[in-house]
Structures are given as structure tokens and as C-alpha cells.
């Protein structure tokens, strides 16, 4: 199924409208104050109202268009696309989780290996050589030269 920009516009506008309702309700809890003395809720309330109004307007703008505008935005459903994005996000989220456990050197090495090997498969020799090179250069630049204190992890490196 090809997801058109129009559907995404409608969905995103509704989500933002919902978010703006949450903001407006939250703002009331913080006390709007008065015009003489605006309270903490004053500015976010107006931000929320404007966001809500514009989201509603955008939703109506898009949903009342007579022609379906099929803009080339790229389907979100292509398999390769999902694979690359998911893999990259998992690897990205894994990095800060692994960092305190196995330390900077190993985490960086594994990070580069996974991305180089699985995003667009390369030979292991290239992958390993590049990963070692990048890890060493990063260690030198960030830990040695810029003196950033990375966690050492259970292996002490």
C-alpha cells in the first residue's frame, strides 16, 4: 500500500491537535494568571491554542482537497528501507546501553562492525579493518586528545 503525503498530513495534524489539547489542559493546571500578571501557564496555553488551531486548519486543508496529491515521498513500507532504519536505530539505542557495561573501545568497535556489515554487506576483512581503524582513531581523538572520560566497562578498556 502506498502511503500518500495527504494521509500523513491528516494523521500528523490530528496527532498535533491531540498534543495541543494536552498542552492546553496542562497549562491550566499551572495557573494562567491574569493579563496584569501572566502566570506560568499563560505562554504555553497560547502556544497550545495556536498549535491546535493551525493543526485543525491543516487537517481541513488537506482532507477537503479534491484531488489526491500523490507526491513522491517514498513509501514507508519498502522492506529494505525498514530494515536499514530499524537496524540503525537498534544499534544507536544499544550504544549508550552497552557503553557503561563493556566500555568505549568494544562498544565502538561493535557499533561500526554491525553497521558496515549489515547496512550494505561488505567483506569481513574490510569491515574488521575499518572498525579497528575507526576505533583506534576515535580513541586517540576523544579519549586521549580531548580527554573525554568514557566508562571503562567490565574489561577495563
Amino acid at each position, binding site marked *: 500500500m502506498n502511503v500518500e*503525503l495527504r494521509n*500523513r*498530513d491528516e494523521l*500528523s*495534524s490530528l496527532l*498535533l491537535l491531540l*498534543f*495541543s489539547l494536552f*498542552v492546553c489542559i*496542562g497549562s491550566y493546571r*499551572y*495557573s494562567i494568571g491574569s*493579563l*496584569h*500578571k*501572566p*502566570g*506560568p*501557564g499563560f*505562554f*504555553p496555553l497560547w*502556544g*497550545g491554542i*495556536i*498549535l491546535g488551531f*493551525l*493543526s485543525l*486548519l*491543516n487537517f481541513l*486543508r488537506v482532507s*477537503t*482537497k*479534491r484531488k489526491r496529491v500523490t*507526491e513522491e*515521498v*517514498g513509501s*514507508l513500507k519498502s522492506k529494505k*528501507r525498514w530494515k*536499514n*532504519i530499524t537496524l*540503525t*536505530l537498534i544499534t*544507536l*539505542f544499544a*550504544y*549508550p546501553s552497552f*557503553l557503561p557495561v563493556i566500555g568505549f573501545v568494544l562498544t*565502538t568497535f561493535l*557499533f*561500526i562492525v554491525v*553497521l*558496515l556489515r549489515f*547496512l*550494505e554487506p561488505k567483506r569481513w576483512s574490510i569491515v574488521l579493518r575499518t572498525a579497528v581503524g*575507526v576505533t583506534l582513531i*576515535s580513541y586517540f581523538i*576523544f579519549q586521549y586528545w*580531548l580527554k*573525554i*572520560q568514557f566508562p571503562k566497562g567490565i574489561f577495563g578498556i
Partner: protein
Amino acid sequence: MGVFENIANGFITAFQPLNLSLCFIGVLVGTFTGVLPGLGPVAAIALLLPLTFDLSPVTAIILLSGIYYGAMYGGSTTSILVNIPGEAASVVTCIEGYPMARQGRAGPALGISAFASLIAGTISIIGVMISAPLISEFALKIGPPEFFSLMLLGLTLVTYISHGPVIKALMMAALGLVLGTVGLDNVSGLPRFTLGIKYLLDGVPLVPFAMGLFGISEILVNLEETLHAEIYQKKIDGIFPSVKDWTTSIWAIFRGTVIGFFLGLLPGAGPVIASFASYGVEKRVSKYPEKFGTGVIEGVAGPESANNAAAQSAFIPLFTLGIPATPAIAILLGGFVIHGIQPGPLLISNHPDVFWGVVASMYIGNVMLLILNLPMIGLWVKIIMIPYVYLSPLILLFCLIGAFSINYSSSDVYLMLMFSIVGYLMKKCKYEGGSLILAFILGPPMEKTLRQSLIMSQGDFSIFFQSPISLIGLCGAAFLLITTIVPLLRTRRPALGVKD
């Protein structure tokens, strides 16, 4: 102290070995980000910000400013060689630059682009030096209502000039204003929208937010397509333009400089609009307008001058009013604040070393860019040819390390990654990040000045209409908003009427 003494002191500061070497690193990184599609100056400045925490404010700003105007130079290299603009302000250079490369004239195109940028940049910096102190003096006389109106006008202008439907850019601006309220309220001390999370008490931190929204999300989008850079002319000989090239281009350079300087002052306009405007002007005044599009050197010289002149003059509203003219300058504003310096009317008087040091380094940076860009063309060509699948893990790694190094905390990294997903979804749904980040940064000062104005006037909104500056600002913003929203309300009715 006269201007000459001040600039002399500025040069003394700028020539200190550390400042000089960091200026070099800044323009190098800036050129690199300009050459690479996918990592603009916003992400690059946000990335290097954490690494500047141990530096003095003037050194940090020299480095970060270098990235900003370096990116303008770098962008034109890929426009000419590969017909892919490295960043938005270089789009126009593709129109004449790439045809020139196809005719074997990539060298003169690159050469005139570099020289034009140097001349325009130098003249523009003189303009900054002369006008910034004067504007600051004037700005000391204006109060919260005027500042609020000017910031509102600036924000509206940026959203008006964005790509795509203006309403979507306005939605992002409103979202940015709301996100800027997260954290402890300065006046009451009440935590707002922190959801009980201690990490958010200081607000959404700028650097991981910007890195996620602009840096990582851009890479995620680029991973979907294989960017195939087809370099037309791999061997570049003769980078120096001929005498004929110079005589043809020199007036284009001067016109571009003037156009760029004045447009750069306007929030929202900046280098992108300046380059388009200059191209339009050159075509109009040319004796052979029909040749435009086939490789006319004035079509490179003019826009390149305009975009670099605008890049320098965009610092004026930042230095004198504390109002950023573009998203990249907005991040620079964040950088100033992180280093304890509030840009605005008091910057020049309270921190003259910062102002004059940065201005002097802008001269030095422009010269360095000329030296870097011409002999190092071969290196930039090689970099353009590196497959993206190798570069992207490196950039991602750099983002992760950068975010972690802010507070040695994984929370910053996770926040960056969450906003990278938001940024990715925004890009897929064609929402602009520029207006979001500008509103996010302008939101807190706008709230502060709004509240101050209302307290001063005891709730009377007419305070915003009492001074000419405030009135002009508000009317300008209202005009832009009305011209956006009214057509939307009108076109809906015929559509509804015809629906079955």
C-alpha cells in the same frame, strides 16, 4: 575606543595560536559539512558545541562561527562538480556552475566562487564592524515590547520563507514555542511539562535536541536512498579565473555583496534568499540573459558573493539584538548562552573581546577558506566520492560521542535518539525543522519580554502599539500571518461546495 583600536585588539585576540588553530579547524569542519550532503551547519555546530565547553567563550565562538561560514563555501564545491547542493544556499550555484563544469570550466567556476566569497565576505565584515556598534547603541533604547515584536516578526519571517506550505512551518513554530516552555519557569519556579522527570527540570537540552532533529534524522533519511555522486569533471586544472572572467564578474560580485549584506540582516531571508535574489538581478541586468542556464560565470560570482555576504551580516541581529536570523545562527545563540554570554545590545560593551575577536577571526577565516578550498579541491573531490555507507556510521558515532560528552550521561544520548525519530518522521511528513528550532530558542526570551511588557503596562496590550518599532514589528507579523491563513479559509469553501 575607536573602531581601529578595537579591531586591532580583535586581531591580537584572533591571532593567538589557540584561536588561530581553532578558526582553522572550524572552517575545515564547516567546509566538510558543506561538501557532504546530509550534515548541515546546524547539526555540525550542535555536534561540536560540547567539545567547546572547556574553551574560553571567544575561542568557542570563533570555532563555531567558522563552521557556519565554512559551510557556505563547501556547499558550492558540490554544486559545481556534482550538481548536488551541499546545503540550501548553494542551490543557485548549480544552475550555472554545473554547466560550466560540463564545459571543462569547473576550475574557473570554483576559483571565481572562492574569490567572490572572499571579497564579499571581507566587505560584509567591514559593514558588520561599522554598523553593529551603532545598532547596539540604538538597541539600548528599546524595551521589552519592542524586543517581543521584533522576535515575533523574525519568527514569522523565517516560517514565511520556508519550503512547503507555510501553515506547516507555522505549526512547527508553535510546537517549538511550546517545547521551549518545558522545565522550570523562571518567574514562579514551577516545573512545566517535565512529567516528573528530573532530567527535564532545566528544559529540553539544546545540543542533543538539535543533533537528533537535524543530524541523525538526516542520516536516517539518507540511508534510504543511495546517493550516487557522479562527478563530471574529475581533473581540475586552472583554478584561477582568466582576466576576461574577472572583468565579466567583478560587478556581479559587488552587486551580490550589497544584496547579500542587506538581505542577511533580515531574519528568515539570509544566504538562501540572497543567492536567489542575486541570480535574478544578474539575469536582469545582463546583456545576454538568454545565455543564463548554459554556464554564465556571473551567475556563479553574484550568488556566491551574496550568500557569503549574507552569512556574515546575519551576525548583526545576533550580536546587537540577540535575535537569530537563521536556524544555524540560532544554534550559535545557544552556544553563546551556554558559555555565559547573552548576545544583545550589551554584548559589545560587556564583552568587547568576544565581539571584536570574533569579527577579526571572520576576516582570517575567510582568507583561510580561500587557501583551503582552492588547493584542497582534490581532497574534497575524494571525499564526495566516499560511499555514504562508510561515512554515515562515522557521523553517527560522532553524534553519539558528542551527546554523551555533554554531561557524561546516557540520558542526553537517549534524548537525542528520541528526537532523531521525531525528526525522521517530520521529514517524511514534510515538516520543517528550521522554524521548530528557531521558535524553540526564541520562545523563552519571547515569553520573558511578553510577561515583562504586560507587567509594565498592567495588562494593557496597547503597550505593544505605542512605539513605532513595536508597531511595525507586530503589523509585519500580522500581515504575513493573515496572507497565509486567509487564502486557506477561502479555498476550502469552493471545495466543500463541489463535494458530493
